[in-house]
């Protein structure tokens, strides 16, 4: 059952096999959070180097991939801290994301309430199944792509990784207020985009 773990205890793994086995996974993991293939390659390389140096700390406890991801997370954090230190961003220098005023524009005296064309509709989907459909991920990335990189990254750290607001603020060198605005814009945009390009189409498919 734990054959791989037992052999792992004995010998340091062949780096070549390691890279083939986990390289793609780690790279995609990093790409999702860095959105820059050079930076992602760098942190993956650093992760493997650190893992090789500290292999005795692993000693076959739990899954090798989980252990590697743990190291990768630290490398990604370090990467953002370094960028933030080298080029601190002043308030408001970079946009937080689209405001979508059209979502709340009405001509019937109810301005600032939902415009009927953009108002949320009921979603008929099982959250657990959602993420197992690769089509959903294509739409998800298309929806994230118009957002500023920093906003998309903050969203990923918060909603996927579940990092604390303070950690994200420190990493990206922003204030809590800044982060809230970014997350709000990301949610507003993403929710609508997913509804238009995924949930409404899925609902149509079920009806037929």
């Amino acid at each position: 059952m734990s054959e791989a773990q037992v052999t792992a205890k004995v010998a340091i793994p062949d780096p070549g096999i390691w890279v083939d086995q986990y390289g793609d996974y780690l790279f995609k993991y990093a790409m999702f959070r860095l959105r820059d293939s050079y930076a992602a390659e760098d942190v993956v390389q650093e992760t493997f180097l650190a893992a090789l140096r500290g292999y005795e700390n692993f000693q076959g406890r739990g899954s090798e991939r989980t252990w590697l991801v743990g190291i990768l997370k630290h490398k990604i954090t370090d990467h953002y801290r370094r960028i933030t230190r080298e080029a601190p961003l002043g308030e408001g220098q970079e946009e937080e994301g689209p405001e979508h005023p059209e979502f709340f524009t009405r001509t019937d005296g109810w301005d600032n309430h939902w415009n009927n064309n953009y108002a949320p509709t009921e979603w008929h989907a099982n959250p657990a199944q959602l993420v197992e459909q690769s089509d959903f991920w294509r739409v998800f990335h298309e929806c994230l792509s118009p957002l500023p990189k920093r906003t998309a990254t903050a969203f990923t750290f918060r909603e996927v990784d579940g990092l604390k607001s303070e950690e994200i603020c420190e990493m990206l060198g922003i204030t809590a207020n800044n982060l809230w605005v970014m997350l709000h814009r990301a949610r507003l945009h993403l929710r609508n985009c997913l509804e238009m390009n995924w949930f409404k189409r899925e609902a149509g498919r079920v009806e037929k």
Partner: protein
Amino acid sequence: MSLGFYEKGKHAVRFWLLRRLPPCKEMVEIVSQSFERPLSLRERIIVKLHFWICVWCQWYMEHLKMLRKSLRAKADQIPEMDSALSPGLSFEARERIKRQLSGGK
């Protein structure tokens, strides 16, 4: 059929509330912040009342909850599901990392 007395009253109260509560545009900001910090008592009351009259904002909250829940639950599987994200490590990067690793022994 015309609405009963009770229904008419409910409509009037809802209409009155909708005119006096912060509009949806402000509500969605508060809803978003409710995922980041505890809301004040005043904000909680406003959200409750607004939800009572506005199913759109209710759904908005539901959708944000659902997104967070599903993304976090499967966070570690995303790189595998996600063929759209990127094809993975390029051949050059793969070879370079392998060289680095065997050189660092």
